[in-house]
């Protein structure tokens, strides 16, 4: 029974993710003073992509790339408690399991794109991995004080430990929260840090050789990714929520990143990495010091 | 003594009767020089302040069997265009390159070589420029019949025949057909 439940759960989250992406395009459109596509447009896009007759593939690894990417994000989803609703696994997802599974996605996509031997793809992958040096550290350093404060490494217990509104981790650790926001912008690959899929510079980066169903898989991967990344952020900083409030929280956070994305130009890669070693790093260190002093 | 006249007198004094200079209209002086006087003229004018090599064009006088190369120079402080035109015979058209005087001439000469078939001695790269793997004779020459080429290349023969036929226009001299 749990397998069926597992599929439904994954399908539900994918659809919600796609709706988020539709909402994002709608919001960006309205910011640019135009109507923008219907909210369910990404779902149509994905269906169209899967309806594609035959697409080019450059080898087994090329076609398995998106498969591994989706595996990574789906597995992370299962280890991530959404609000106080834990997924089918009673095993309360551990921070490091989630962090390391999060990396499987980009690695799988990188392997696939590498096989396509397109210079644009290679530049895209190099940027994606170097960016990790930037935002991944800040994200980890931002969430570390919360885990240390509540004396546990499992996300589920962190959620339970936080009480009602006044004592959310976001309130207790404001500095880390802001640093976390900076990191989230990079983690989601939004505009100032949208170097990986920079359509104007490197023709949509690693996805340059992916068409048809591969692109469909990558779209779903991106959709679930949104839910997982914002979900992780909300879990850590906003304490116990019912499922509805959880998705509301994730939408608000996602809304913030989309707004920044709509108005910001794009960094150069070394600027982006160097940016992360400036203000956000300082903030996260302050956050850690705060934990030491406060505790 | 407007600026154009001073330049006209200046050119006439330095190059004497070899050069025929006339002021066509305000801001434009035209000089007809023989073939071998072009480069010294260019050098002299550059040194006199005509820094901008605006254009190099070629006119195909098929009747007289001549190509007319027109070098357009322009000076900012005088605000005057000087057009040096010279006539070279058509079949084996060769001309010394102007690159070492004006760098700008590099691409113009390549284009004219490709379109008219003028050989510029001393030009480093006279290979394919705009037209990719073009096999026929240089297309801008008058003896290249575009309509016949279009017919056998793209098969667009009937339409032009019955809709309108153009009678052969009489030749009314330079600058006349606008």
């Amino acid at each position, binding site marked *: 029974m749990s397998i069926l439940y597992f599929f439904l759960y994954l399908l539900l989250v994918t659809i919600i993710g796609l709706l988020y992406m539709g909402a994002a395009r709608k919001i960006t459109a309205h910011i640019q003073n135009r109507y923008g596509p219907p909210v369910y*447009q990404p779902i*149509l896009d994905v*269906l*169209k992509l899967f309806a594609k007759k035959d697409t080019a593939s450059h080898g087994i690894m090329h076609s398995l790339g998106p498969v591994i990417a989706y595996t990574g994000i789906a597995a992370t989803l299962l280890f991530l408690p959404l609000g106080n609703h834990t997924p089918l696994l009673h095993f309360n997802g551990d921070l490091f399991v989630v962090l390391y599974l999060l990396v499987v996605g980009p690695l799988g996509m990188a392997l696939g794109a590498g096989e396509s031997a397109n210079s644009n793809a290679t530049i895209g992958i190099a940027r994606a991995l170097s960016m990790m040096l930037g935002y991944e550290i800040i994200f980890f350093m931002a969430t570390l004080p919360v885990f240390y404060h509540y004396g546990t490494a499992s996300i589920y217990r962190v959620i339970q430990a936080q009480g009602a509104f006044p004592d959310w981790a976001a309130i207790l650790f404001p500095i880390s929260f802001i640093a976390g926001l900076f990191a989230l912008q990079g983690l989601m690959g939004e505009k100032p840090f949208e170097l990986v899929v920079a359509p104007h510079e490197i*023709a949509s980066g690693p996805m340059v050789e992916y*068409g048809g169903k591969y692109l469909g898989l990558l779209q779903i991967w991106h959709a679930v990714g949104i839910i997982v990344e914002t979900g992780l952020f909300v879990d850590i900083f906003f304490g116990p929520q019912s499922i509805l409030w959880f998705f509301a929280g994730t939408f608000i956070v996602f809304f913030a990143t989309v707004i920044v994305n709509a108005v910001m130009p794009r960094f150069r890669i070394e600027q982006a990495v160097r940016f992360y070693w400036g203000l956000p790093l300082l903030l996260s260190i302050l956050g850690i010091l705060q934990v030491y002093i406060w505790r | 003594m407007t600026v154009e006249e001073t330049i006209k007198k200046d050119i006439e004094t330095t190059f004497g009767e070899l050069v025929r200079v006339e002021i066509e209209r305000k801001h434009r002086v035209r000089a007809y020089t023989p073939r071998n006087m072009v480069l010294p003229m260019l050098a002299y004018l550059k040194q006199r302040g005509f820094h901008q090599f605006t254009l190099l064009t070629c006119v195909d006088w098929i009747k007289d069997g001549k190509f007319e190369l027109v070098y357009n120079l322009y000076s900012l402080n005088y605000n005057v265009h000087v057009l040096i035109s010279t006539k070279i015979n058509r079949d084996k058209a060769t001309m010394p390159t102007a690159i070492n005087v004006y760098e700008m001439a590099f691409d113009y000469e390549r284009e004219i070589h490709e379109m008219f078939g003028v050989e510029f001695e001393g030009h480093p790269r006279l290979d394919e420029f705009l*037209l990719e793997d073009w096999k026929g004779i240089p297309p801008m020459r008058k003896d290249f019949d575009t309509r016949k080429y279009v017919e056998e290349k793209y098969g*667009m023969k009937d339409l032009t025949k019955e809709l309108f036929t153009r009678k052969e226009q009489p030749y009314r001299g330079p600058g006349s057909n606008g």
Partner: protein
Amino acid sequence: MKLFKFAQSRSLWMMHFCTGCGAVELPPTMTSRFDMERFGIIPMATPRQSDLLLITGYLTVKTLKRVVRAYEQMPTPRYVIGFGSCTINGGMYWDSYNVIKKLELYIPVDLYINGCMPRPEAIIDAFLKLREMIDKGEANAWKKYIENYEWYKKNQAEVFDVEKWSLKK
């Protein structure tokens, strides 16, 4: 599957490969005044990801080589829209030595928009026309390309060296 047909018509990803003078018409269609994204049409960077190819204006032999290669790199089903009269019969370049006269001979075209560069409204109208054609299942010019592949190749061979430029299927 009707749902797939619906999805295919509603989300057309346009290959941002503007070939002729019509390219200048596309920005206004994309931006806030006309906003073609309302109809699910967004410009994509690579042929692999797109299914709609716009030939906007006259097509010289040089760009034809690239267009054919881009066309073959697009996954099927793919649609082509020709802008202006130049794609129909060569337009005002009817007697020019390097402009191809009939786009039909080289790649199958689903839809033509007449007008010596149609305005954005005409373009949006064409997109909606294409959407209907897809819904009705008429827009299968791409099948023609696959069925009489040799004929297209023969025509192309007249104009440029096909061996070097076309993809080995």
